[in-house]
């Protein structure tokens, strides 16, 4: 892994004191996984689960199969870079290519079979402005 070397002493203290605002710059480095499958299995399945079916507890993570909103590849790309409710924004963690790759993976797995692909240029256009908070309003 080639992540910026930073000790958690700094992170923990900023998390605790600065309301996490400053903490972002410490750990929002890029995820190392490349390719849709590696990214999905390395990150996304933490919540959406290995079978893509999501999970239900007091709250829920949505299933990725059979969700009509995935008909547009821009939708999952936007959710990934901007976040949505409980889903954190990952704009700082993924390159445009990584987002495109995992979107294309999701849209061709878990019962999805969309033929069209999303490219990095689509992702780039959906990213939040750099200075703005990563939340659409």
């Amino acid at each position, binding site marked *: *892994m080639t*992540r910026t*070397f*930073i*000790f*958690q*002493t*700094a*992170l*923990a*203290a*900023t*998390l*605790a*004191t*600065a*309301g*996490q*605002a*400053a*903490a*972002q710059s*410490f*750990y*929002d*480095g890029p*995820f190392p996984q490349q390719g849709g499958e590696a990214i999905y*299995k*390395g*990150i*996304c*399945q*933490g*919540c959406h*689960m*290995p079978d893509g079916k999501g*999970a*239900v*507890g*007091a*709250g*829920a*993570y949505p299933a990725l199969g059979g969700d009509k909103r995935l008909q547009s590849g821009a939708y999952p790309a936007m959710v990934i870079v901007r*976040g949505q*409710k*409980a*889903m*954190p*924004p990952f704009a700082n*963690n993924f390159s445009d290519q990584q987002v495109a790759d995992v979107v294309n993976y999701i849209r061709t797995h878990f019962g999805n079979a969309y033929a069209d692909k999303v490219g990095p240029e689509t992702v780039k256009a959906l990213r939040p402005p750099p200075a*703005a*908070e990563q*939340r659409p*309003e």
Partner: protein
Amino acid sequence: MADDSSAPMTRRSLFTLIGVAAGGAVMLEAMSSLAYAGESGYQGPIQLSGDPKGTSVLILGAGLAGMCAAYELRKAGYKVQILEYNDRPGGRNWSLYGGDTYTELGGFTQTVGFDKGLYLNPGPWRIPHHHYAVLDYCKRLGVMLEPFTQVNYNAYVHSTKAFGGKPQRYRTVQADFNGYVAELLAKSVRQNSLDQAVTKEDREVLLTALRQWGALDKDWNYAKGVDSSGRRGWASDPGGGTTSVPIPSDPLAMSDLLQSGLWGAIGAGLGYEFQSTIFQPVGGMGMIGKAFGRQLDGVIRYGAKVTDIRQDDKGVTATFIDSKTGGPPQQARGDWCICTIPATVLGQTPINVGAPMKAAIDALYYDASLKVGLQFKRRFWEQDEQIYGGITYTDQPNGVIGYPNADMFSSGKGVLLGAYAFGGPAFEFAAMPPEERVARMVEYGANIHPQYKTEFDNGVAVAWHRVPWTLGCAGHWTEALRAQHYDNLAAMDGRIVLAGEHVSRIPAWQEGAILSALDTIRRLHQRVMAA
């Protein structure tokens, strides 16, 4: 003191210089004090005077916020009931013990194999001395506290990329870093390089201070000898009788130390939240939740998953189902509702509040975090390495190794905190099955303590994005989000008001949860009394 216009600049310049030289640690201190110079604002036990005349309050969530609210409102004469998703009180105030079973989202189930009395705190694990509310409730509820060691000079700082991956004692890195900074600064002062910044009167005082602070020798050097070894320890300790000659140790080379980055690991104890003395409950953090739960016996309906929250002009009705078996919807009602359900979960729950509060709820996602508890057959960190409590810091993804701050010198097994990860690594670990998380932590730990390989017994891993009732560890506030949404999240919306760490300015801390609850019930009580 006269307001000499040159004086403040002098001190500031000096501070800046030290800041540049000292880097992370001092910068951290400055950041912390800037961010939260204030105290928690706890004024002692809350007084809610006046008769609420049987007013009822429905509370959603039996974490510290919900239970604190119930405890105080009942005392003030309110009728209270709590709906709780879990089958235990406490929420994120939680300890896992041997025999406990924990099932995370996706159905991955772990049965904890720890020996009796040993535990992992998956959530909070320490209480600052200025978190007055938490400490006061511990006292009032009979929760015994003991010191939590934040800084252990004999624990390690570790980088896979420095000193051949060999962990260094915290003590040596701190002594050497301070020593070299003091030496450089002393040289500058003695060469009169800082005449603009330091007055003649201050010059000698500063030199004396630097010699003391940095353990410099008579020639103003930080060098091998009795002065430096008095801080970093000896190659051979002084003893008795014929073997008593102490042998000084060799400081790390300054360039090696700077390039190692290990100086970034010696600042944790400088932060306001971490300054000695801080505390932990005897027997696990979860003792606080249990104590509240005992007080509220009969008030809490466990295993209740809230599916709808609806207010009208007379009260609030929560619809819920059994969180394990489902079954027919049931309802609970109160004249008012205090909702402590995490924003991540509440955002998915139908609730008729106004658009501003709803937008605030939906704006907050929760951070990623991972904690792993590892049981070992013997307490080798104490027996072999003389590490009693405290924390080792590493650049590996596990982040830290936390040593138990209790049962020291016990000949039995021991449980280490094998990981406390945030951010990117925490997301990655959440994507692994629990047993793989544990296996990884054993690998990482073995690079610091080779004994891991032979002494490992069993482990348990809690990745907070897989926790079914929080979907993350704590609300992720930024300054911009606060400016936009915080007031709307905290404001009463008709008969509904929210509480919890996410409705506080001490996010992720239990103190925030309790202060939020106290502020909530104070406002609610005012409203009731005014009616």
